[in-house]
């Protein structure tokens, strides 16, 4: 089975006192083994929410429609027992480790060992200890670090612990949710190096989520750009980063200056305005209020995702067929 | 709206002074806070109960004659059960329990509030200074606060009441002096976190003096928390006054809910089943303390929206 992850028309709505808030609208996503897919967008665009559905971790107040197919089975309607078996052993998540994704009062080694014990109840303690040491070395940390508590580790070290933890049960799919945010640049480079190496060595599929398009462009094979809960562009990463079709994707890639490109130093970058409030979306295209290329027609209807070549899609009526 | 605002027209919009702007902004945030408070049902219920008891305390002379407190003028029998004449029966001296209850509200509430004022003044001052200053004065104050926190309240209150003598003021003083440390710690940690904020540094660079900073920047940010804490402190103070009176440390010439219960205990109202003497004062204490607690919790919710819906 080569299809690892298939999302079909996934929509997620939060039920609040003030009414229904659409956080994710009709997202379609494909990911295969050995592939790195980037998911880009500003904070609040729904990318982390989309990823949370892969392991059915969305909050209980959320209503999800559509299908999230992991190796052919729909995660959203799976039986509880099958879902628990899938969690971590089929797919795992690398959370932002620099913050509070680790239990502060337990040793990091125990936290890495926890899913191993859970998914293989008969395994011996010695084997688990050996495996934990092996995982730590894979991410470039000495095995003795397993005895440390989270507060004794630096941000970069904690992030590597999160990666080691995510690999513990040999998953086929890894979701990396903002793995390098809150890390300084040098550490960022190290962590990304570890991640890309792992994908190629272990043949896993990786969904990398970030608001930093330059990070994704480097690492990912393909990129999906989200805005206001919808996919607005997707395609090969070089093209999405270098020659974006959708005005938002173009602005996003322009926001990160390219060293060595003299034109970039003079070109205006950055977007005016704020991301849309999901509880109060503007009519038509959600990006229209901030778009430099918007016209009247943009506010009349939601632009469909149209194809522009073999593996290129954009949701904008202002893009002409090449 | 001020007169200047009334005269404003579209062509000549009034330019508000900095102070007027600040006042309007404060009023808006107060209205917002009030609306959030209103949505908290238990907080509103507490406020209503407090209003009721405040009314009873203030209007005591109208509701029950002060003569009813005098032992020499008592006309009822000893520990009579409730009747049409005495709605809550009589105490061991023949006085109407209802009258005692109404007048007792005054003492209990008054002492509670007075003690709270003392406690909050000391606690806020110590908290502000130990939080804001650096250097040995802050360290000494903090150490002092921690030490006082360790001393158990009731033994200290008993000793102080014995040494100072039994009067309303002394009781309020004793409670105030023994309950300021927890407030001081709270204010101190809040002051510390405000001190970290960038605008304090900027003000300092601009040459603002220490007291100016405390008054203009730290105090307005700390006051809401002080306010919420005050409400909870009153609850504790009222409980403390009731307990001290029950143990016989209150003013023997004044009637409070605690002293009523002390009488009830001393004359064996429990064994004789005179429930009308035991239950009502306690119920009043519970209602008032619960009301203050609910209001205090609702205020905390207004300040810290994260707590909403608890």
């Amino acid at each position, binding site marked *: 089975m080569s299809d690892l992850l298939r999302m079909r028309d996934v929509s997620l709505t939060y039920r609040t006192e003030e009414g229904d808030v659409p956080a994710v609208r009709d997202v379609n996503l494909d990911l295969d083994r050995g592939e790195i897919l980037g998911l880009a967008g500003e904070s609040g665009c729904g990318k982390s929410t989309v990823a949370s559905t892969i392991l059915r*971790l969305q909050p209980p107040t959320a209503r999800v429609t559509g299908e999230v197919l992991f190796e052919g089975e729909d995660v959203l309607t799976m039986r509880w027992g099958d879902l628990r078996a899938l*969690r971590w052993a089929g797919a795992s998540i690398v959370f932002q480790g620099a913050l509070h994704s680790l239990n502060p*009062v337990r040793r990091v080694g125990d936290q890495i060992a926890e899913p191993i014990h*859970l998914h293989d109840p008969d395994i011996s303690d010695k084997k688990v200890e050996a495996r934990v040491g092996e995982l730590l070395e894979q991410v470039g940390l000495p095995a003795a670090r397993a005895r440390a508590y989270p507060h004794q580790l630096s941000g970069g070290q904690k992030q590597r612990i999160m990666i080691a933890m995510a690999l513990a049960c040999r998953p086929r799919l890894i979701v990396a949710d903002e793995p390098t945010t809150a890390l300084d640049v040098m550490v960022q480079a190290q962590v990304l190096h570890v991640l890309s190496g792992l994908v190629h060595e272990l043949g896993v599929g990786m969904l990398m989520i970030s608001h930093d398009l330059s990070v994704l462009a480097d690492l990912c094979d393909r990129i999906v750009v989200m805005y206001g809960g919808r996919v607005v562009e997707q395609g090969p990463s070089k093209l999405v980063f270098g020659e974006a079709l959708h005005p938002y994707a173009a602005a996003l890639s322009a926001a990160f200056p390219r060293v060595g490109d003299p034109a970039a130093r003079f070109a205006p970058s950055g977007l005016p305005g704020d991301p849309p409030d999901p509880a109060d979306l503007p009519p038509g295209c959600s990006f229209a209020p901030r778009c430099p290329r918007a016209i009247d027609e943009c506010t009349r209807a939601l632009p469909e995702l149209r194809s522009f070549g073999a593996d290129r899609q954009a949701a904008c009526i202002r893009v002409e067929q090449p | 709206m001020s007169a200047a605002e009334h005269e404003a027209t579209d062509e000549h919009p009034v330019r508000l002074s900095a102070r007027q702007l600040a006042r309007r902004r404060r009023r808006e945030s107060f209205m917002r806070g009030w609306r959030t408070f209103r949505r908290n049902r238990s907080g509103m219920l507490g406020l209503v109960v407090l209003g009721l008891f405040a009314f009873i305390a203030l209007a005591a002379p109208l509701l029950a004659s002060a003569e009813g407190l005098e032992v020499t003028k008592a006309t009822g029998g000893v520990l009579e059960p409730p009747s049409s004449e005495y709605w809550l029966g009589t105490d061991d001296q023949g006085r109407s329990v209802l009258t005692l209850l109404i007048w007792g509200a005054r003492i209990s509430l008054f002492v509670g509030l007075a003690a709270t004022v003392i406690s909050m003044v000391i606690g806020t001052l110590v908290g502000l200074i130990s939080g804001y200053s650096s250097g040995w004065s802050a360290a000494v104050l903090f150490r002092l606060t921690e030490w006082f926190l360790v001393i*158990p309240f009731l033994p200290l209150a008993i*000793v102080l009441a014995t040494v100072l003598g039994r009067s309303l003021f002394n009781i309020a003083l004793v409670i105030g002096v023994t309950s300021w440390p927890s407030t001081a710690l709270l204010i101190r940690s809040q002051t510390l976190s405000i001190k970290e904020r960038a605008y304090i540094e900027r003000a300092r660079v601009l040459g603002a003096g220490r007291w100016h900073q405390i008054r203009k920047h730290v105090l307005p940010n700390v006051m809401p928390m002080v306010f919420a804490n005050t409400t909870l402190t009153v609850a504790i103070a009222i409980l403390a006054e009731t307990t001290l009176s029950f143990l016989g440390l209150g003013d023997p010439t004044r009637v409070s809910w605690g002293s009523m219960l002390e009488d009830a205990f001393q004359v064996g109202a429990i064994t004789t089943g005179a429930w009308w003497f035991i239950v009502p004062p306690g119920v009043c204490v519970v209602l008032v303390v619960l009301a203050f607690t609910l209001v205090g919790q609702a205020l905390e919710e207004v300040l810290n929206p994260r707590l909403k819906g608890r």
Partner: protein
Amino acid sequence: MSLTTAPTAVETPRPRRRSYGRYVVGKVAGSVGSLAFVLVVNFFLFRVLPGDPARTLGRGRFSTAEQLAEFNKTYALDQSLPQQFVTYVKNTLTGDLGISLKYRVPVSDLILDRMWPTLLLVGTSTILAAVIGVWLGIRGAWKRGGAFDKVSTGSSLTLYSMPEWWLGLLLIAVFAVGWGPIPGIFPTGGLHSVEADPGTLSGVLDTAWHLTLPVITLTLAYLAEYSLIMRSSLLDELGEDYLTTARAKGLRDITVRNRHAVPNALLPTTTVIALSMGYIVAGAITIETVFSIPGLGLLGVEALEVPDYWVLQGTFMVASAGVIFANLVANLLYGLLDPRVRT
């Protein structure tokens, strides 16, 4: 299969015992400091007395000038204040807490005599309250807003707003005296029945029977605060990210709660229990009064009548020392539970 990039400088985590040892030393030093402060406060409290100290402190005991002089010498009452303080500290540290005016025996004897009923009463109630209160708080927080939570929180708030001794009076009235259909089966007070010999098994049961209502009263009074705090702490923890990590690993919800959320939520609860020691002492005093239990609390209250200053000073010292010690234990326990304070 190793992808080692240059690892960051290898520091072995400091051995656990050494950092905890340092933590213990720090806390013990703090406790000693607090004790010293209490000694000073205790000393000065009673020197605020009006009138001649010997006359007030030795009231009614001396008829001759020699006895008065002897008394003065022992307690250095005729000397300067600093001298008095030194004598006082020396006496206290050697266990000489004065002579009771009421009972005419050394205060230290009285205290030792009456200590165990208090410890029994307070110890049992605190442990029961901590266990039950924490359990109530956990269940309430986990199913927040449910029927159990509403009833539990409402009752806790009401109990918390109630003077514990009033609850005791009500329980006596209903269960010891009897009210309506409910028979009064419990004793109304005291620690032993007159005929009972505390040493025998039946005597022990008799003591336990006498302590039942007092322990129930104190337990209810204490657990209200503990359950409210535990519930609040757990609700705070439930929003934390590491719980999402735990759930993502495939753990059952109950395991996520008990293995991850609760140990973290217990930390602020432990702190609060430590801070409430003063309240626990107050409870001992009032409940012993209401139930006539001959413990330290009742001793202190009885001393008010005379007033028996040496007893008051002694019980104040013991109460404060007890709170300081209990705080120390709670701090040491906290140091075991939270690795962050050890480094």
